[in-house]
Every structure is written in structure tokens, then in C-alpha cells.
């Protein structure tokens, strides 16, 4: 899995690419969220535009990150879901949990 972080104002954008899957990607996104919180960044936007696959471990870790960030008084939102990643969130009804955006400016304005 590839990742890149950039900060826009108080929001941390975490760009992810490749596979968010068991054993590697799931651990990495946990580390990225921990790093953001250590940097006092509580408003976090996952850019999933380059994610090719996500498995139940990756989804589970995203849910755990959502809970962690929310408990710290922050918000975790998603951006640029591919149709397949959208399907994966739809079937487990997690699309009702996460706020999802197609446009970065709109996403940033929502925090």
C-alpha cells in the first residue's frame, strides 16, 4: 500500500493507494491515524482514489480509525471512492457511517 500525507489548514489529507489488506495496509492506516493524532490533527480525510482493493481487515481498520478519531473529538471522512470500493462499503452498510465526498474542496469545507 502507498500513502502520502498533506495538511490543508487544520485538516490532514491521507492519500492511500494500492491494496488496503490484511497484514500490511490495515496496519499502515492505523499508524497514519496515530501519527495524525500525535500531530494534533483531528480532522482527517482519507483520499481513496488510488486504492485498488480493500478487504475486511482494511475495512475493519478504517472503522476502528473512525471510532478512535471520533472519541478524540475529531472527524474521519472519505473521498474519491472508486465504484468497487463504494460497493464494498454499501454491502456492509458502512456507507451510512462515513461521510463520503467526490470533491476535495467540498470535503474540506465540511469539517
Amino acid at each position, binding site marked *: 500500500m502507498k500513502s502520502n500525507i498533506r495538511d490543508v489548514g487544520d485538516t490532514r489529507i491521507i492519500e492511500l493507494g494500492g491494496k488496503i489488506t*490484511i497484514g500490511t495496509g490495515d496496519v499502515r492506516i492505523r499508524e497514519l491515524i496515530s501519527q495524525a493524532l500525535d500531530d494534533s490533527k483531528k480532522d482527517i480525510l482519507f483520499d481513496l482514489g488510488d486504492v485498488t*482493493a480493500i*478487504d*475486511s*481487515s482494511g475495512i475493519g481498520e478504517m472503522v476502528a480509525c473512525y*471510532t478512535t478519531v471520533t472519541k478524540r473529538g475529531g472527524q474521519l471522512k472519505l473521498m474519491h471512492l472508486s465504484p468497487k470500493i463504494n460497493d464494498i462499503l454499501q*454491502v456492509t452498510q*458502512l456507507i451510512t457511517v462515513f461521510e463520503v465526498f467526490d470533491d476535495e474542496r467540498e470535503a474540506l469545507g465540511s469539517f
Partner: protein
Amino acid sequence: MGTGNGRAESRPERRHRLKTPLIEVAILSPLMNAHAQLRANLVLASRFENIEVAERALVDLCRRAGCADDEEYWLVTALREAVANAVRHGNQQDPDRCVRVAYTISNSTVTIRVEDEGHGFDPADIPDPTDPENLLRPSGRGIFYMRQFMNRVDFGSTAAGGTAVVMVKDLASNDKDHPGV
């Protein structure tokens, strides 16, 4: 990963090889027989890295069979969940325990059987991950995904008491707008 003639190796030899390299044993012999059937078998050590090996074998078979990209994607997604469960929950990530994967593509039907060397489990014990009270649970979605993306998923036991899951997808019934349905 080496190719073989499909004959099983002796158990002592296999056990020896399992302790050393990353991808210990992979017997892959995709053959198109007289009944237009593609088959392959893998024996993998219980490591998450080997999920990639299982995926590559399936992708190879799907492309030989002419599966659509969407069909291949959802098959791979279900396969990865099954192998991940075998490695993590069945074999407790013990690399000396094997995960066996058997693939068959025949008459536009893909059948994947994944076996572990664990102690079995009852899939009825897994709570519904779409129940509102379970939505924020960090685990428990793997079998749900398998059932969403395949037409049939059946759990049984191996002779040694491990779990054998058989997943079937009828390629002809695949609907791009509704994966797995």
C-alpha cells in the same frame, strides 16, 4: 513457486520445505482437459503474504477462462477473505500448518475450496455485521463479503477437523451492477 505435475509430494519433504522460504509449496498445474475444465491446486504455508500467491493463481485461471474484469475482481475479493480466515483464524498464523486451495472453472462456474488445519468453527456464531449494533465492530465482515460476492458459500470440516469452505460463482449470472448477486 514451481509448477508440478499435480502429484502430491511426500509429507516429510513438504514439511521440510515449509520451514524455509517465503512461499513454501505451490503446486500449480492449470490444465484444460477434455471437458473444458480448468483446475489448479495450491498448498501454502500460513502467512498473509501467501494470499497474494493464491490471488495470482486465480487471476491466471480467470484470464485463461475469459472471465470479465468485474467477475475476476469479486472472485479475488472472496478468495482473499477465505484464505485470510484460514491463515488467521484456522491455522493461527502457524507457518507449519498448510492452507490448501483448489480451483475449478467448468461450464462457466468457478468453484474454490479452501481448507485449513485448524479446529473448525460454526459460521452461525458470526454476528450479522450489518446489524446496527455491529456496524462499528472492527471485525466480522469476511464471511459476509464472501457470501455477497459468490453465489454459494458452504462451510464443512476436513477429515482432520479443520475448516473447508467451498465457494461457487456462476459466471453467467454475474451482474455488474450488483456484485455477487
